[in-house]
């Protein structure tokens, strides 16, 4: 008689117990549910707000500027005044040569905060041109702001000087300086639809997030359910039960996969919410239009990736006798995911060779990128699906092997 129903019951019992045990820790709930759900909405909402506040704060700063050398005309003075730059004048240092950028002793003035920047100006009367240099401290926020404002206003002043010269010679500024021009709306000429552009934009970071979150969120439960159990001495009693070790692994795998799968899903939900409601319509981040097949294949890709990563992490964690030891093994393992994941972001998908879809981690990331752009290329799908299935089975086999280790019953407690 087949014992499959009993084994399935065992797996379900183990998985359920692991989940109950795990979610009873409120910190876990925060890590698994709250953080993934809120990370994107907070990022989309809080980041622009913080940037705006920072910009407003910088814009309100009154900055002291020293102009050394020749005095500029009223145009530049008015520009500086309008931009909250308080100017004072002094002569150029006597020892200065033709290179105005040499700080000499003036760096102390900026370091002491007497002025945030020094603008050195020298007029060439023969051809009525100006030479300038701005002494500033790029590591000081106020000095950097002064530098930016000076550059900005100098550019406006330069443009007005150019226009004056052109007009004096009877030339039209636009015709002279911009003789080759785009005709019409640049965005209208892009044949990609908004949804396609959105898919392309999302494909640049969603696969990376899914891969990193799956790998990182599985670490803690994997350790807790294996090395943690060994350390606490709970595994010995369970191993004495009439449960096959593979079923024990399957139950634990199911629980970890459910935890990290929930995290990934909630993160995607948070992202969709943020993209739908927290970005304005002019943003490049919009909802892509995906076919049902693309969505199903996308989910299958995540599932296979989760099988592989969770099985591998469980296998590595169960080899360790303590949580500390497992942490020091699994922590750096995230690099094994991040590097290929980053690498996969730079691979050009147009005309991509099939072998790329056989490389572990890279294959799933490339598949996700293609699918987010609603490209279902059956040759690629077959390669990444079967290669990922193979890697997932290999990881499961390795994990099962580790779960059959005799020293699993030994603990440091």
């Amino acid at each position, binding site marked *: 008689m087949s014992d499959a129903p009993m084994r399935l*019951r065992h797996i379900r019992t183990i998985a359920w117990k692991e989940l*109950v045990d795990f979610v009873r820790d409120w910190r876990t709930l925060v890590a698994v549910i709250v953080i993934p759900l809120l990370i994107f909405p907070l990022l989309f909402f809080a980041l622009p707000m913080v940037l705006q506040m920072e910009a407003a704060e910088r814009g309100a700063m009154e900055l002291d500027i020293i102009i050394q050398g020749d005095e500029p005309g009223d145009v530049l003075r008015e520009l500086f005044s309008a931009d909250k730059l308080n100017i004072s004048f002094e002569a150029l240092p006597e020892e200065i040569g033709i290179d105005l950028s040499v700080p000499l002793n003036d760096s102390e003035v900026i370091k002491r905060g007497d002025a945030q920047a020094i603008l050195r100006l020298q007029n060439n009367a023969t051809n009525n041109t100006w030479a300038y240099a701005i002494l500033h401290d790029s590591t000081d926020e106020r000095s950097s702001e002064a530098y930016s404002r000076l550059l900005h206003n100098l550019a406006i002043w330069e443009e007005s000087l150019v226009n004056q010269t052109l007009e004096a010679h009877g030339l039209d500024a636009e015709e002279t300086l911009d003789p080759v021009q785009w005709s019409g709306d640049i965005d209208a000429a892009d044949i990609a639809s908004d949804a396609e552009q959105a898919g392309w934009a999302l494909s640049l970071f969603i696969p990376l997030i899914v891969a990193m979150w799956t790998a990182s969120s599985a670490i803690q439960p994997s350790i807790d359910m294996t090395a943690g159990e060994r350390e606490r001495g*709970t*595994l010995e*009693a369970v191993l004495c039960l009439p449960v096959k070790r593979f079923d024990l692994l399957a139950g634990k795998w199911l629980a970890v996969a459910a935890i990290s799968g929930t995290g990934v899903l909630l993160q995607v939900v948070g992202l969709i919410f943020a993209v739908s409601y927290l970005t304005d319509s002019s943003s490049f981040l919009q909802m892509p239009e995906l076919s049902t097949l693309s969505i199903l294949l996308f989910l299958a890709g995540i599932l296979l990736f989760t099988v592989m990563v969770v099985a591998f992490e469980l296998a590595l964690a169960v080899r360790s006798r303590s949580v500390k030891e497992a942490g020091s093994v699994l922590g750096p393992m995230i690099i094994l995911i991040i590097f290929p994941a980053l690498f996969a972001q730079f691979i050009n998908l147009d005309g991509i060779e099939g072998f790329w879809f056989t490389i572990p981690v890279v294959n799933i990331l490339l598949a996700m990128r293609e699918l987010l752009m609603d490209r279902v290329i059956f040759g690629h799908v077959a390669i990444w699906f079967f290669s990922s299935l193979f890697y997932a089975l290999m990881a499961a086999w390795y994990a099962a092997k580790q779960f059959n280790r*005799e020293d699993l019953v030994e603990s440091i407690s």
Partner: protein
Amino acid sequence: MSTLLTSQGVTKEFGDVVAVDGVSLNLSRGDIVGLVGGNGAGKTTMLRLLCGLYRPSNGSITFHSADGSKKPIHELRQRLGVVPESTGLYHRLTAWENIRYHSRLHGIDDDTAWTRTLRFAKSLDFAEDLHRHTRGFSRGMRQKTALLRALVHGPEILLLDEPTGGLDVTSARMVRELVSKLRDEGGTVIYSTHHLAEAQMVCDRIIIMHNGQIRSDGTPSELMHETGTDSLENAYVSLTSDIARAVIKEESETRISKMWRSLLTPSSKNKEVGEDE
């Protein structure tokens, strides 16, 4: 009484260390056997061999079913109750949830498990604590929970590893009384302990283990007769008079880990005891 378990020349080696050395024993149904020995005697390894957690390096362990046929190890697990030394409770679950987890994995329905648990819990004065989380449990409460968990499926054989270790006098007595009750009901118990007096109170038969070997196996009076002593304590001392080995089991770690650890461990070869670093 019919044979339940047979161990034939069982040896267990961990690298160069022989933890159990050629142990042969027969266990019959209804036996309450005390496994007595000092630290490193091989008691825990022997228990783990008996419940199939370790595979013998040499020799064999056979489980005999009631009809006399021999059965594989997973058949034994269905009929086995184990209380490991560490108790092994999940601290975010209640005592009952810990017990129910094991009963479900034994295929026992929750109602049967609860009825059985409640019966034994009352005799341990523990019924009121079944729905409390085990996180704050004392050693005695943990031990009682582990004992109830091991009994929930009505095991044919119960393996107890230091079941009264760290318990107060009253709790230890309750555990001993429960074992006696099991004996009256025809249960089979292997009771591993450091304490000779405790084994004498609970067990009909005492196996003395020393340096991985069985030094003697019999009733307390047989042991005293065999050694020509007038007390069990003297019999024990006589049987284990050779120096107990210091068992340092090699950890299963990679060669690189071992090498790295030894590189960073200062050598004390040339230092006198008490010499300052």
